[in-house]
């Protein structure tokens, strides 16, 4: 062995990935400072970003995995995970849709995914996907005209470092929780949005996202800033089941709405849930939080969660500005062995702040669905109001629904309402539909979609249609 070889072996952890100049290489499993440095270096990040990551890593080392959620899974070995997974080489991808699992294609068909997006979603080699680049370019030009910045997080770190430095971690601090700290240390990529003062973003930031940024890796980082009086609607995710090799996903999303600004953030999450016995499947441990920093601002979360083996997710709003508004509309579907512990936190700080929570949980198979929500009214939040509606629907006899509402009210003028229901799809409802000629499976879909209506109507139009189809696919085989 030559001395050069020995040296590279000794320094392996530090050097791997940026000394060897192979773009497609992944880092070996394990996490230490060297890995954090390697990730930062590979992305050509400025010094501040590396420093930020390293501090997060050191904080993470002192933290413990949260155990309070109502979910069960074997311990995660954080040293068995590779923290920089290079993109799959085109050689390993299917060359065309003909090589893709027909079952997957069938699902796309049922979901009504446009033809030109199917190849991309199925992981077909990029050069085989026609026209997606030019579509993206057109969008980008249109956004540039009005001054909207919409780019990958990595690009923002390099090109808009002032904004990133100012806002990153200002809603979800590095040490907010175990997974947020981990994400802060090793985040792979994600999206960055800045809407300038008074601008109404001319399009849903969704179409673009779906075509281009679908594959952002397992530690996704998103930062959206809506400057004074601006407005943006952002759509994350995709109804199509996405190809993914990583089991652990720990994303962080931060939203900042300045005075009079409005952010509408819609999510459709459909990661692989594992098979009917719970084998495989993604662990989705996400921290999402919005800060209504200015007066009269508004942040609205809408989510449709059907995928993942385990979901741990609480999109929240900090209602700091006076008269600010927070909303949370959620549909969480679990089937087979899936587990979801999801909900929201509404923290009322400003005067006359208002929040609305509508949560619809659907459980089928042997799955467990948890709603966990906190409404907190601080002493200075005069006239705060909250309305919470939390409904659970059970399909079959082996599933479960659990509700954990927390309320901390420190101002006597607050008005807080909480309504909760648990219901089953009754044999009477099914028979009624079937007597009208509707098949049992269609009847279940019809009833479930009715149950979710209040949430679906909050979704962007074309997406609401897909979300309905998605629910139908997710509940296939739930009855009978």
């Amino acid at each position, binding site marked *: 062995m030559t001395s050069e070889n020995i040296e590279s072996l000794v320094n392996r952890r530090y050097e791997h990935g940026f000394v060897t100049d192979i773009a497609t290489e992944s880092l070996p499993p394990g996490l230490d400072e060297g890995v954090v440095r390697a990730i930062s270096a590979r992305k050509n990040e400025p010094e501040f970003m590396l420093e930020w990551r390293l501090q997060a890593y050191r904080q993470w080392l002192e933290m413990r995995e949260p155990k309070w959620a109502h979910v069960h899974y074997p311990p995660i070995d954080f040293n068995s995970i590779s923290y920089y997974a290079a993109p799959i080489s085109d050689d390993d991808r299917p060359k065309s849709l003909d090589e893709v699992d027909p079952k997957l294609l069938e699902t796309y068909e049922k979901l009504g995914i446009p033809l030109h997006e199917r190849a991309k979603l199925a992981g077909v080699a990029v050069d085989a996907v026609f026209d997606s680049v030019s579509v993206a370019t057109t969008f980008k030009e249109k956004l540039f005209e009005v001054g909207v910045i919409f780019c990958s997080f990595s690009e923002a770190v390099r090109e808009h470092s002032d904004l990133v430095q100012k806002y990153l971690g200002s809603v979800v601090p590095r040490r907010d929780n175990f997974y947020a700290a981990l994400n802060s240390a090793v985040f792979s990529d994600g999206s960055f949005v800045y809407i300038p003062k008074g601008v109404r973003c001319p399009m849903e930031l969704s179409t673009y996202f779906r075509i281009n940024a679908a594959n952002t890796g397992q530690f996704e980082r998103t930062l959206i800033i809506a400057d004074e009086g601006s407005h943006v609607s952002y759509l994350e995710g995709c109804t199509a089941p996405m190809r993914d090799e990583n089991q652990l996903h720990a994303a962080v999303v931060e939203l900042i709405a300045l005075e009079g600004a409005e952010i509408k953030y819609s999510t459709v999450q459909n990661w692989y849930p594992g098979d009917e016995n719970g084998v495989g499947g993604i662990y989705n441990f996400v921290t999402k939080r919005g800060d209504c920093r200015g007066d009269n601002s508004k942040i609205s979360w809408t989510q449709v969660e059907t995928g993942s083996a385990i979901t741990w997710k609480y999109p929240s709003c900090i209602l700091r500005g006076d008269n600010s508004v927070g909303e949370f509309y959620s549909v969480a579907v679990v089937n087979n062995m899936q587990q979801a512990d999801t909900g929201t936190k509404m923290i009322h700080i400003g005067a006359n702040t208002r929040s609305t929570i509508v949560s619809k949980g659907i459980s089928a198979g042997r799955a467990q669905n948890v709603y966990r929500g906190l409404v907190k009214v601080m002493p200075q939040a005069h006239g705060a109001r909250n309305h919470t509606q939390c409904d659970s629907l059970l399909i079959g006899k082996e599933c479960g629904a659990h509700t954990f509402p927390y309320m901390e009210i420190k101002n006597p003028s607050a008005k807080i309402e909480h309504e909760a229901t648990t219901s089953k799809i009754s044999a009477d*409802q099914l028979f009624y*539909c079937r*007597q*009208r*000629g509707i*098949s049992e499976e269609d009847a279940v879909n*019809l*009833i479930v979609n*009715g149950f979710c*209506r209040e949430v679906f109507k909050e979704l962007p139009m074309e997406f609401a249609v897909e979300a309905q189809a998605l629910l139908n696919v997710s509940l296939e085989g739930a009855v009978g």
Partner: protein
Amino acid sequence: MLEVINLKSRVGDTEILRGLSLSVNAGEVHAIMGPNGSGKSTLAQVIAGNDDYVVTGGEVIYKGNNLLDLKPEERAREGIFLGFQYPVEIPGVNNAYLLKAAVNAKRKHQGLGDVDAFEFLKLAREKMAVLGMDPKFLNRGVNEGFSGGEKKRNEILQMAMLEPSLAILDETDSGLDIDALKAVAEGVNKLRHPDRAIVLVTHYQRMLDYVEPDFVHVLSEGKIVRSGDKTLALELEEKGYEWVREAANG
């Protein structure tokens, strides 16, 4: 059209139908009367295919085929309609949506394409006018928060849209005020047709003042104990069900 032969059925451990036979032809209106617990609703549910009701004997032949082999939705698509005694609420599901899904399921079965949305709405509004229903009902949740009378009118609306071959109306008259009863009866009368059979399951004579039956059958303890024309209903009204029971036992 419908041939029920020596039908026996139970719910749980309780035997309800104990050898019931009935023959219904196209164009006829039959009234089935009888005291509570005599098996009227059970007969309706068994024909519609509710699997809470177990068939333990006998046959049901519909349009020449064994009806009992078919699933409830297949029976519906073949033209069997049950107007429910207690129509169930399906919260959040748009009434028009259910109605359209039902119409399209039947059309598909007949090899036809989906109904045109505008045609559908136009037709639904026409039928609703006849039944004295506010068009707003189309956009409400199925039976959600409907009054008793509204639910029954909604059943008749569904029947009118689906144009069944065999309509069984299970106590559609119960709980209706006189205006609702007249509206429902008018809806039923409009559907009288040489190709269609209607079976009215009812406890009282009242409905039959407005919808004149060709045949009246009296059920007791799971069997038809008397059949006759409309005068039987009047006689029954006068003498009470005890009279039938005695006649059956005597």
